């Protein structure tokens, strides 16, 4: 946006407003205002809040407690479990949001006509289903007693699976639902990126004697690396957040905290137990952690990913 606006903005009003270039800032003002009011201000206030104790009642004022919230939270097994679960969410999501979509995008690149439309419909339907509908849908499908999936499992002669009640399985069920919803988007992005690769490179590689696999490994994957890295980054940074709706609607973080991740915990502290201080503390810790991760990725993408211009 700023790229397109700035040059003309600098030139035209330069005569009206000599010297100081006010116009670009005027154009930016609405965006900056929104960013400030809705992002930076709350962030700063959360930071303040994390050093206080407050039960969110407007009649009470937050009581300063110093670093106590941080000390207490870090000592809490609940938080450690949620943090570890967050890692598992991300690890479990990566195959669903990156590896499988990459394989699908590359394997289906030559599809044409009706088959292509069918495949697209199949891949995109999960994407347009609202998350809450997806949650309800999967709760039915995976229900232990009358769910279709367990019906089939039982039909094949296996014992039924407690998808949501078994603490060892529940997290992976949530990962699957989150990933199922993401796959379409990732495939769309990777297919598009794959489609923009200059066919000349692939022809040159064919002339050089490369087979399909070698072309994929040596030409396609390096040229797709910016998109792959973007998807990995999005999954790592946001994957656990995207599962929030499903945790909230299906397991409520259970059984025994098995599906609780850091974002759900934050929400629970804030809006179920009304410990605003703790919630803010968890939020700030998460923010700092993911902020560092984001910086790491930016550095990585500059180094590793190749950008064709």
């Amino acid at each position, binding site marked *: 946006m700023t790229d397109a606006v700035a040059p003309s903005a600098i030139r035209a009003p330069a005569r009206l407003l000599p010297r100081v270039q006010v116009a670009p800032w005027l154009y930016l003002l609405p965006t900056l205002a929104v960013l400030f009011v809705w992002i930076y201000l709350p962030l700063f206030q959360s930071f303040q809040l994390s050093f206080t104790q407050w039960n969110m009642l407007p009649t009470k004022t937050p009581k300063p407690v110093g670093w106590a919230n941080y000390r207490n939270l870090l000592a809490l097994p609940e938080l450690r479990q949620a943090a570890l679960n967050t890692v598992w969410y991300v690890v479990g999501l990566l195959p669903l949001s990156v590896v499988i979509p990459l394989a699908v995008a590359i394997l289906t690149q030559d599809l044409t006509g009706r088959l292509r439309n069918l495949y697209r419909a199949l891949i995109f339907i999960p994407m347009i289903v609202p998350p809450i509908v997806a949650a309800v849908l999967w709760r039915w499908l995976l229900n232990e007693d009358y769910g279709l999936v367990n019906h089939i499992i039982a039909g094949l002669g296996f014992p039924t699976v407690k998808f949501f009640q078994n603490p060892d399985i529940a997290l992976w069920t949530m990962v699957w639902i989150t990933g199922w919803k993401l796959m379409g988007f990732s495939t769309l992005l990777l297919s598009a990126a794959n489609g923009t690769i200059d066919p*000349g490179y692939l022809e*040159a590689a064919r002339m050089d004697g490369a087979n399909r696999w070698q072309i994929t490994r040596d030409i396609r994957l390096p040229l797709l690396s910016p998109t792959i890295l973007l998807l990995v980054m999005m999954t790592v940074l946001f994957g656990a957040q995207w599962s929030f709706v499903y945790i909230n609607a299906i397991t409520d973080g259970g059984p025994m905290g098995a599906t609780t991740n850091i974002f759900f915990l934050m929400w629970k502290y804030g809006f179920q137990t009304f410990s605003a201080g703790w919630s803010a503390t968890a939020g700030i810790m998460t923010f700092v952690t993911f902020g560092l991760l984001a910086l790491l990725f930016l550095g990585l993408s500059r180094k590793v990913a190749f950008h064709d211009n």
Partner: protein
Amino acid sequence: MTEIAISQLRKEFAGTAAVEAVDLSIRSGEFLVILGPSGCGKSTLLRLIAGLEDATGGRIQIGGTVVNDLEPGRRGCAMVFQNYSLYPHMSVAANIGYALKVAGVRRAERQGRVEDVARLLELDHLLDRKPGQLSGGQRQRVAMGRAMVRNPQVFLFDEPLSNLDAKLRASMRVEIKRLHRRLGTTSVFVTHDQLEAMTMADRMVLMNKGRIEQVGTPQDLFRRPASVFVAGFIGTPAMNLVPGRIVSDGTLVADGGWRLGGRWPLNPHTPVTVGMRPGALRLTAAPADGPVFRADLCEDLGSELHLHATSAELDLVVALPVDARPPSGPFGLTVEPEDLHLFHGETGQRVDPLPALQGDTAWQMQPSFT
């Protein structure tokens, strides 16, 4: 010994033929240039040889083997693409060495061969760069290196010089010819630039609308064009092409009542197209019968003058030596019968004159058309 034999080759895109009825044999070690206007199917023909397109019909043999069903990498051809298509994420060394890597050549040997090629092309100091950091001419060389490193049986070039500026193009032209002389590899070179074709070709092919118009040496095509299309395409400034017909006494008359010489094996009243090179026209005094011209424009190219001469029916270009003075008043034009090119009005095919008879003037007896 790598000759290429193409017979009845045809390629359709969505039912429209881009290449059809192509018969062509390319001799071992020769430098063959495929010339033609944009969209005539040159690239398609080259890509058919390379295997990047599948033929709709016909047969391609390379070195005696039918290659129609062989993968591009197994045909022994290396290609230099118009925009080079260098792998943007690989260094120059990796670009040149990729074919060897894919072929399973060990790293040490690979490195040696890449360095040999780089030295030959004066790329040694650029081996660690990425294509994005190279100039157009350097990219062109890397593309050449990538093609040369495998010692292919055939080089295929698809307008490899068209992205370079004029000066660089001229020097690369010479360099490619030198490389060819040195390596002696059968080469097929596609271009739309007739200067490139005329200067580089051992033999050339002129294509039009997916078909071959003429195959021969550059001199063949220039001196004895097989069709109106060839006549009009080859030569700068272009050959003057004038409608005409054979009259009842057998002589050739161009539009405007311009009686031209020669004896032609055509029936009276046959419509024809007469071709006259700008350099073959001579200025005369305005004739009593026949077209009277006036000078319209005169372009001074430094080495010669191009005079645009107009009459009531005709617009011709006449090439004059630089010291000639363009006429200010009306004038006539003549052309020696031996310098005429005649084409059948309907088929566009060349018609050769009958051998001169006894009693004709001496210059007509020179066997210039045989």
